[in-house]
């Protein structure tokens, strides 16, 4: 068997291994995506689906300020959630990785992600019980004499962000922790040898080395948060709509799949742009 035939055999073996993944991606991503793009170019007129191709649904997005506002709300909430989650998750991950003895770290991680085990919807409604006018938080604050009348937190953006942050802190803690425990202690020793204090060591050595973990978690947070409509629906009280809620309205109220598809493509483009920006800025290929 010559080198050429060995290469051919190698190529075909490669396809055997890669084939299922390619087929999977084709069946569950490429084909549905193409169908969705096709749908977004059709129109719903009354009860009729007009199968004539046009960009009217995309033009409609920019014509209607409440659609654009939905995207702006989505971006603002997602940015807020991502930043707050990172700020809270990093110290938590650091404490688990650096301060908790090795043998207790698994248990600490388990406790940190325990809320993941409850249903997402149930968790959102549970937050409603905590944040509502007569909820536990207001009862406690009033009982402690810190406030005289209940705070209006439920059905606001604060409630939506709180619900999201609770979920995504867990996710970010995992990705940052995984990065932190991989760091060799020699980095710190070398920094100390060179005269760096703990703060400078963290700022100039540890933090840059854990950026990949932060960025992976942040990107997952961004993607999951910007596409979610359940938390804003339950905790936001419909007082401001995010783009996924507007997409759902097109389906449930109008059965307008073409507009819903067009809005979904817009959302997907935004996520893709966010990924490209993050990847370029932080050289995500290192991740």
């Amino acid at each position: 068997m010559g080198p050429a035939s060995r290469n051919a055999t190698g190529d075909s073996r490669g396809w055997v291994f890669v084939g299922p993944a390619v087929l999977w991606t084709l069946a569950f991503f490429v084909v549905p995506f193409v169908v969705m793009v096709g749908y977004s170019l059709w129109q719903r007129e009354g009860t009729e689906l007009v199968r004539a191709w046009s960009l009217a649904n995309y033009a409609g997005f920019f014509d209607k300020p409440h659609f654009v506002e939905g995207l702006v709300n989505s971006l603002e909430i997602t940015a807020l959630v991502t930043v707050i989650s990172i700020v809270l998750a990093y110290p938590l991950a650091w404490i688990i990785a650096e301060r908790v003895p090795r043998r207790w770290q698994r248990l600490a991680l388990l406790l940190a992600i325990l809320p993941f085990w409850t249903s997402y919807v149930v968790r959102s409604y549970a937050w409603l019980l905590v944040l509502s006018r007569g909820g536990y938080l207001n009862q406690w604050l009033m009982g402690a004499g810190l406030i005289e009348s209940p705070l209006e937190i439920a059905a606001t953006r604060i409630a939506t962000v709180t619900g999201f942050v609770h979920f995504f802190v867990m996710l970010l803690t995992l990705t940052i922790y995984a990065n932190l425990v991989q760091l060799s202690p020699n980095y710190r020793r070398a920094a100390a040898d060179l005269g760096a204090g703990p703060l400078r060591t963290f700022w100039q050595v540890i933090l840059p080395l854990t950026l990949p973990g932060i960025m992976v978690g942040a990107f997952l947070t961004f993607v999951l948060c910007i596409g979610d409509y359940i938390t804003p629906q339950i905790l936001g009280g419909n007082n401001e709509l995010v783009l996924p809620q507007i997409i759902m309205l097109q389906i449930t109220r109008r059965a307008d799949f073409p507009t819903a598809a067009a809005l979904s493509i817009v959302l997907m483009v935004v996520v893709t742009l966010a990924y490209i920006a993050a990847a370029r800025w932080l050289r995500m290929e290192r991740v």
Partner: protein
Amino acid sequence: MKKITLTTLFTIPLVICAGGAIAQEELNALVWCDHTDPGFVEPFEQANNVKVNLKDYEGTGTALSLIEQSQPGDWDVFVVDGIDVPRVVEAGLLAPLPEDALPTADLFPEIVMPENHVIDGKTYAITEKFGYNTISYNSNTVDAADVADISVMWNEKYKDRIAIYDYYLPVMGLVAMSLGIDTADIQESDLPAMRDRLFEMKDVSRQVGEVVSSQTAIATGEVDILVGGGEWVTAGLTSELPHLDWVIPEQGAVRWSQSVGVFADSKKPDLALKFVQYILSPEGQARLATSSCYWAMPANSKAADHLTDQQKKALRWDDQAAYLANAQLYPAPDAELDAKMQDVWTEFLQH
């Protein structure tokens, strides 16, 4: 021998189960959530040895998209908003019903609505339940005189204590009535004034929510007033929360109704009609009126014989004549106006 015995042991129950499944007919119904109460559907299933598969939905748009994704013949019975019957008949979804098989004469006359159900001389659906989208309130904290006037919907006195039911048709109907416009006469030119009034309401409201969150909000005391509420929110809660009440303001309220029909493509039209007849029977009507999902008035006046005095009191049975006189039907916009109303509603949510 041992193999045969084991195989037989495993096979017999399967055959019995399969045989049972074959013997029992199935009926597929696309319904509102009140039909999913086992106490309502089980008597029909047992009496007819049939399994009724119920799929509940909210909003005719959702139902149409479900039907669009189904095969002809998948569905047998359709419960739909009364105002949408002409739309679904036009789409060819419903079959004519034999009039002599329906208890139309027993229905409250105001809710027979032949203009919606009879098309080209054929009856395609019949009203099964009705009620009002009006004002529900906490009688411990809200002045009864305030809720007697429709202006309570934007009354600063109740700022942040008002929830609004998230369904554009009834609430925009109430808004139109507050502006002196009949629900049947809403035009595109009325939308700017309606938008302004909706924005006023949003400024004093606490939240806009669907059925569950609206009910939860008023039941837990998160809000004291629910715009768009009615007996469907509070009647079922009267035994536990007697302070929750509802009222039709002087200016009137919006009347909703749900209708039932048989799908044109149904493969079991006789069984489907039998289910419709059960729903419209006095017993079925009493069960449907007090379904665990929500309570509301039965269309058949003879259901009174099967309701307790307390149930009738919660439904305000004796006040129906006055209520029906002071209520207007849901707005029934054409597709173009409907899309514009939904845009206004989305702007309102975003306000």
